[in-house]
């Protein structure tokens, strides 16, 4: 009567194959992702991080792929450990409202000790914006918001004191290269 045992073993083998397929996708694909290094981006050509928004990345920046969502208009770059996140979205409010929103988010981050008042800035392409600097426990950064034709772009630079200080100039230069195309 080997039929029952044979069926049981075939079932077990089938189950192992199915489980291997599931785990292959659930664990294997993330493992492949981790094995591939983040891509370096050009610091001379504009990077289109949304349908109608682009930025020229700073030198030696890599795209942090697992914190980047192109379909949502979000890109996160890393420069020597400093994170540089840009997001573009449709925003029906005012520039100040856009700034207030990101200020609220930053204030709620643990360890943030002080945020400067918003200062007016202008991008290289003439888009009006607001900017504020914040400091926290061994970290610092700033946010910049631009608003043009109902599209808001938020850029946040965040990192440890040494890293931000070292790369401040190129990061500030990059933030000023934000371009928002007119939506038709």
């Amino acid at each position: 009567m080997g039929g029952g045992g044979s069926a049981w073993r075939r079932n077990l083998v089938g189950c192992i194959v199915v489980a291997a397929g599931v785990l292959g996708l659930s664990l294997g694909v993330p493992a492949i992702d981790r094995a591939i290094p983040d891509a370096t981006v050009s610091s001379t050509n504009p990077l289109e991080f949304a349908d109608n928004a682009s930025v020229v990345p700073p030198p030696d920046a890599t795209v942090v792929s697992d914190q980047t969502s192109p379909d949502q208009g979000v890109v996160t770059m890393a420069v020597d450990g400093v994170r540089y996140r840009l997001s573009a979205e449709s925003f029906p409010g005012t520039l100040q409202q856009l700034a207030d929103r990101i200020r609220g988010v930053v204030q709620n981050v643990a360890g943030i000790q002080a945020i400067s008042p918003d200062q007016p800035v202008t991008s290289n392409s003439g888009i009006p914006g607001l900017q504020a600097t914040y400091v926290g426990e061994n970290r610092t950064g700033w946010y910049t918001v631009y608003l043009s034709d109902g599209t808001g772009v938020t850029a946040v630079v965040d990192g440890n004191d040494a890293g931000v200080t070292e790369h401040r100039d190129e990061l500030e230069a990059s933030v000023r290269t934000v371009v928002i195309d007119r939506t038709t």
Partner: protein
Amino acid sequence: MSVEQAATPPPPTPGSRRVFGSWSAAARWPAVWFFIALSIAGIVILGIAFGPAIAEAPGAFVLAVVLFAIHGAVFVTIIRAVDWLEPEPRWLFAAALIWGGFVASANALRANTALESILVKMTSLGFVRDWAAAIEGPTDEEILKTLGIVMIVLLARRQINSVLDGVVYGAFVGLGFQEIENITYSLNAVAAAGDDSLSAVLQVFVVRGLLAGLWSHTVYSAIAGAGVAYAVLHRERSWFNRIGVALGALALAWLMHFLWNSPAAASLTDYAGSYGTLLVLLIKGLLILGTFLVLLHFFRKDEYEGVAGPLESLHNPWIATHNEIVALRGWRSRGRARWNAYVYGGMRAYGRVRQLQRAQADLAVDMRDNGPAGYQARMPELQRARYGVHELGITDADALHPTTTSGMISFILAFAVLINPIFLILPLGFLVFGVARARSRRQRADPRLRTAAILALVFALAYLVSVIARSAALV
């Protein structure tokens, strides 16, 4: 007797649809434990991923669960109607739903995130923006859902008796995935809105449930299920043929999913705006649904022939007349036979014809699967059902029906309800008058009178829901 032998599902018992002889036998079957373990892991993954979002917006979560549960129930009813000739065990349906909803969706969440990250590393952001959804979704999700159909085969191989069975189990796996994905999309929409927003949930329900729901995961996985069932059933064919057909069906499911997610014809939306978007979605959706319905027609025909053959071979009108066998073919013809009975003898006659149809289908399926033993096991049930119908004076529960002008007018008038719900009274009036006249003259009534009344009621209900939704939006 070894443990392995005790755990092996016994040969099918005529007259019964049980898969395992007992709970302890089920507990010794490897597939049961693999299924449970993977399901628990899936629930944990989803809980970790969406637990905070649920805690942030409990009201929206409850609304999403309720709306998509109702949405899913409609699909369950449709799939059960397709599966009427040989209904599958409910616990297997539940298993298919659980796999789709928890195992496939949870693991797809991880795989999709990783695959998008890989695409970001290896291609441009613009490419990822346009094509990531078209590549990730079909690749990860279709494979995971198809593995669920294979798991159903491992749980209960003997329940797969026709290609249509694979379609049905595949549809249930896809439905589970679709509804859980809809709920997670609702939570994401609420999070994007920034509060416990019910309107974001309603928006997701309209877009994903109503506009895109008909040609979604349920359809894709049903196609993949057909391939798995073919591979399981056609053991007389070569491995190459069986695996080839299964992979071909999976490839078709992938292609349908890819088509839906792809930015194909997106340029049309640039010129034609939101109407262009809707048109593109409609064309894609109808292409997917149309392909599926054509295939489904052949799968259903195949299953019907498997049922009609044994009944016809008996040449016994007491068991089933030729017209009754013809009436078993589809839900419309079965419904028409019951409608004839209703017009003739009211709800009691309707119910008894339904019982007769059920008994005839069960007898045919058991004869197909178990031969004379199946015939013996199912005959008492059929005898009772036949006596019940005979007692009311119905000798032939056929689906033959007249086509009348009043039926046509009533059908057209049903659409008037879209203009004003007061017109509901017209199809209902035609229905009451038509049935009363047919009964008084001992004639049959046009089934379109009933169809028109149901359609008008659905339109009236939709109108009522839209009024309530508008009121809620104003508040």
